[in-house]
């Protein structure tokens, strides 16, 4: 194996990826130091003014960030609990095993925005089936126009869409577990609950961590759903960070400021995801 060969394998991919990415990232950092907007389009240099504005005078960004954290932690926890339960249920023998496995996978194959359009009609205040059923009990909650219910709706749609991904990763993990620990536990006379606590769960810990982190990364980008379902409304009550940056950048065309927002958001994301993964490793692998 000489030097030439190994780079011939690695470089095409690396060069393409860096080639596509280096300009956008460099340009974003430069853009964040300028005041480019619709009135003064152009790359002037205003130092860190955008960042000062962001840290001292923009509560809307921080609110959207905390809302995003709330939404992603809630949805990912629900997805993990439901996905793990589903995976355990179709892991061993069950009637129509393959049918249920396919059925549980289907939502993740559908385009989120397109399904969200359907969900919008589903939760429609007067014409949708949800309120049609609820009207039997004499209530017709405004799913999309109340600030708390709108969050609930987003959580429901996200859980529907992405639980299958969690389910897939966890089921693949379960299917690859070695058989011996389970046999040993049976010999020792452990019941199903003890088996789960002392055998299945510890063995699944590394896979669980991986799955949760992958989902957290994807959940931190929630944007399509919000855009179609509520457009950030009512008011700003369902705005996530991505959506807020989108509004500033591509609706109000404050390119410079939104680049500063993007860069800050990226750094926060990297730091918080690192902390969360360290924390999860400590929590789930106790030894």
């Amino acid at each position, binding site marked *: 194996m000489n030097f030439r*060969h190994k780079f011939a394998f690695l470089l095409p991919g690396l060069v393409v990826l860096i080639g596509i990415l280096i300009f*956008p990232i460099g340009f974003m950092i430069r853009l964040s130091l300028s005041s480019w907007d619709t009135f003064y389009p152009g790359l002037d240099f205003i130092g860190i003014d955008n960042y000062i504005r962001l840290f001292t005078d923009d509560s809307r960004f921080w609110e959207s960030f905390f809302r995003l954290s709330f939404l992603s932690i809630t949805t990912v926890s629900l997805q993990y609990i439901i996905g793990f339960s589903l995976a355990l249920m179709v892991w061993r023998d069950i009637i129509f095993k393959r049918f249920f496995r396919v059925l549980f996978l289907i939502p993740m194959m559908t385009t989120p925005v397109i399904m969200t359009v359907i969900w919008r009609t589903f939760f429609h205040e007067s014409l949708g089936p949800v309120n049609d059923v609820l009207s039997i009990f004499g209530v017709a909650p405004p799913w999309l126009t109340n600030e708390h219910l709108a969050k609930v709706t987003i959580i429901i749609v996200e859980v529907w869409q992405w639980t299958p991904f969690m389910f897939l990763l966890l089921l693949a993990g379960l299917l690859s577990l070695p058989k011996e620990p389970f046999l040993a536990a049976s010999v020792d006379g452990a019941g199903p609950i003890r088996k789960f606590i002392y055998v299945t769960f510890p063995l699944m810990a590394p896979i669980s961590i991986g799955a949760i982190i992958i989902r957290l990364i994807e959940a931190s980008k929630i944007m399509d759903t919000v855009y179609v379902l509520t457009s950030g409304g009512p008011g700003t009550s369902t705005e996530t960070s991505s959506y807020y940056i989108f509004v500033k*950048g591509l609706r109000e065309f404050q390119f410079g400021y939104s680049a500063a927002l993007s860069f800050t958001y990226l750094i926060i994301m990297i730091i918080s995801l690192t902390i969360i993964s360290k924390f999860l490793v400590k929590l789930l692998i106790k030894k």
Partner: protein
Amino acid sequence: MRTFYIFIKYFFITIWSMFVIAPFLWALSTSFKDFNSVTGGAKYIPWLQFEPSLEGWSVLIRSQGKGGVNIIEPYFNSVFVTCSASLLSIIFGTLAAYALSRFTFKAGFIRNNDITFFFISQRIMPPIVLSIPFFLMLGFLGLLDSLLGLILVYMVLLMPIAVWIMVDFFNRVPKEIDETALIDGCNPFEAFFKVVLPNSIPGLIVAGLFCIIFGWIDFFFAFILTFTKVQLLPVAIVALNSSVTPWWSLSASALVSVAPLIIVAFIVERYLSKGNLSGALK
């Protein structure tokens, strides 16, 4: 206790299955409605509760001049962009993954794991962060609103997935295979293409499926980087949503657009049950 557990299990599975199916059934029912049956409140069963009409489906094949919805061209665009971007990502991703799995790289403090992490970490990048620079960059290159521009951008989204799955896969293909080939007088390229690659078909298929899924369901970049000439399917359907919302054609086109990937669900399940996926996804 045992009966109770089984009862709970099937109860939970039934509830979840209903939740999974509900929006599809609703869309299917809505796609056969017309103006009167949509605005008259929620109705579910055709003939019994409302008179079915084929309006929603017929606008899909009618020409735009006659009030039709153009989703055929976006459909082909979507298929083309997704497949080409997936294919390119798989090619580059597989080569890089092979290198990272078999050879040792050292440059300063950078090791193999760091390079692998660099590839995979591109998934952390929120699309919005890249959107404005991409918008300006493609504008500068004259690739805005074109298929080629979209393919380039989608490669950034998909290559991390390809590398992630293939590195794990190659790590489990025994090294002896390529060593034997090298001893037999192949050079590393021949060893890779003639010996390792044919043994990696399951991994390649899984990586390809995931690239196709994540390429097909993307909306954001297509939404920002294209306007009129080139339109991708999700964008075309969401555009229907903004007008006076004809729910029937909306539902029909939504069903048409999610249909092909449901076949993918069947293939993924097959690989899952055979156990090929377990290694590829860990």
